[in-house]
């Protein structure tokens, strides 16, 4: 008998994932699922799925789930956590969901210091609706609503969400990572695990921003997509810990 060296996380269901080739939602789902299993909280975890390509994430995570309206996941998570504090509540949101329509909800959930975990997937585009410009779309990046490339004097500069969230007095832990290659995937896993550990320890609001790809929306191959993350996104969205009250306070 061979030895099992790798298997699908018990935190994921057997449902085939609906994501496009080269999209990193699947990779990120796996990291989140592994963290929940390793921390021993899968059985009391509640996913708040948002609106975007990951709208059906509740089919993939092997835990309870609530599907929220576009942008409202942090408010829905607040409601769940307040009446069911023993639940481990996390939102999974794209950049259209969190950084455009849901800016109010994410900022105020952090302001209240809600003891929840936010997984924020920044792919610099609206994937699900066919590749429109997002608040995080880079200058000169072409999308279906910025066909000549994003122009600063029309759309402003791309929103730096982690930098903004770190300024909020009551946020606890804010880190930006990337899932585009193996060393960064390992760092992403660590950050996700920490964000859940904080919730288990009752520390308050944690958000992990994960740079991700959208080969279909960007009109590039999967390999070119990971290169775009490395060469264009990481320089504008620097990786690192933006806030860790655990470090400050300890």
């Amino acid at each position, binding site marked *: 008998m061979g030895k099992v060296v790798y298997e699908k996380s018990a935190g994921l269901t057997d449902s085939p994932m609906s994501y496009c080739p080269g999209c990193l939602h699947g990779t990120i789902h796996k990291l989140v699922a592994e963290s929940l299993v390793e921390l021993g909280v899968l059985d009391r975890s509640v996913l708040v799925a948002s609106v975007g390509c990951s709208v059906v994430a509740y089919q993939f995570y092997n835990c309870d*789930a*609530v*599907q929220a309206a576009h942008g409202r996941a942090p408010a829905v998570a607040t409601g*769940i956590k307040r*009446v069911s504090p*023993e639940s481990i509540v996390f939102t999974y949101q794209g950049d259209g969901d969190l950084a455009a329509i849901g800016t109010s909800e994410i900022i105020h959930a952090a302001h209240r210091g809600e003891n929840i975990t936010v997984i924020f997937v920044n792919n610099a585009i609206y994937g699900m609706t066919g590749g429109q410009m997002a608040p995080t779309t880079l200058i000169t990046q072409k999308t279906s609503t910025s066909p000549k490339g994003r122009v600063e004097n029309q759309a402003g500069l791309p929103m730096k969400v982690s930098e903004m969230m770190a300024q909020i007095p009551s946020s606890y832990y804010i880190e930006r990572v990337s899932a585009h290659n193996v060393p960064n995937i390992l760092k992403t896993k660590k950050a996700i695990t920490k964000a859940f550990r904080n919730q288990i320890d009752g520390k308050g609001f944690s958000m992990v921003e994960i740079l991700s790809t959208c080969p279909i929306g960007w009109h590039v191959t999967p390999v070119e997509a990971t290169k775009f993350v490395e060469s264009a996104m990481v320089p504008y969205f620097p990786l690192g810990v933006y806030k860790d009250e655990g470090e400050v306070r300890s």
Partner: protein
Amino acid sequence: MKILMKGNEAICEAAIRAGCVGFFGYPITPQNEVPEYMSTKMAESGGTFVQAESEVAAINMVYGASAAGARVMTSSSSPGIALKQEGISYLAAADLPCLIVSVSRSGPGLAGILPSQSDYFQATKGGGNGDYYMPVFAPNSVQEATDFVQKSFEVAERYRTPVMVLIDGLLGQMMEPVEFSAPNIPQFDKSWAVGPRNGRERNIRNSLDLSPESLEQTNIRRFKRYDEIIANETRVESTVQDGDEVVVVAYGTSARIAVNAIEELGAAGIKAGLIRPITLWPFPNAAFQNLPASVKHVVVVELSQGQMVFDVKLAVAGKLPVHFYGRNGGMIFESPEIAREVTKIVRGE
């Protein structure tokens, strides 16, 4: 024992006594006493109070808390209820119970803060997307407001639907003696709620369904529940009797004023009866069937430019002339004014 209480505060007290454990709201006149009262009393009773960043957030907190199986509520007034419509549609779609208290003011837009009944459409026809209804109770006194708040939680949980209690700023601000009954709400099955699983199958509260075949069936099933609500929960008060020449139709605050107008009409020799819809959805259509042959006119009075009048016309189905009299913008009719208008109609002036 009766205590003297403001409508807005009595609603809160009733909700807490009915086992409400979570309140999520945002300030807006004329319902500010609700979040204010809840901010202390909810904490005292061990529940959750959150002053949300907006009505949009508040209704979505309700959505989450309800999905976790908690008995929860929100309250607001006209422009704030407008912002809750998206959330109400999602609550209806995900079959989640909750109470929404609407203390209406004048409109449209920011308009004024004085009482009005111009949110009948907003309450009964909804502004959220999709095929759904929401039971709406329209009390006419502080006592009824407390009774229906408690009843609302029961209806919400029995049929798994958001429920609204609609009053106007006048009932919200008015003080009246009120007695709290010991609410006896059955324990409804909430095995669908999310939270710690302890080995059970996972629960998903959701409204997304990309399969037209299954979505159609889901919506048809929900409408079967609506049929049960129509059969079991429709409420109306009617004083119409044989010999009445005219039926006055009014709800909430207007109904109280109409009662006086009907007395005044009687003294002047015009026999009138009152139909007071207590549930606005389901609308009490049956009360308009088989009216005595003596009835020649139906007069709807509302503190609006005429909204419920359309439901009355549907119920009357062309069998009688349906007239309307209303004031709006925060202007409130007095009973002689209604009596005068009804007299003109009856006399064909």
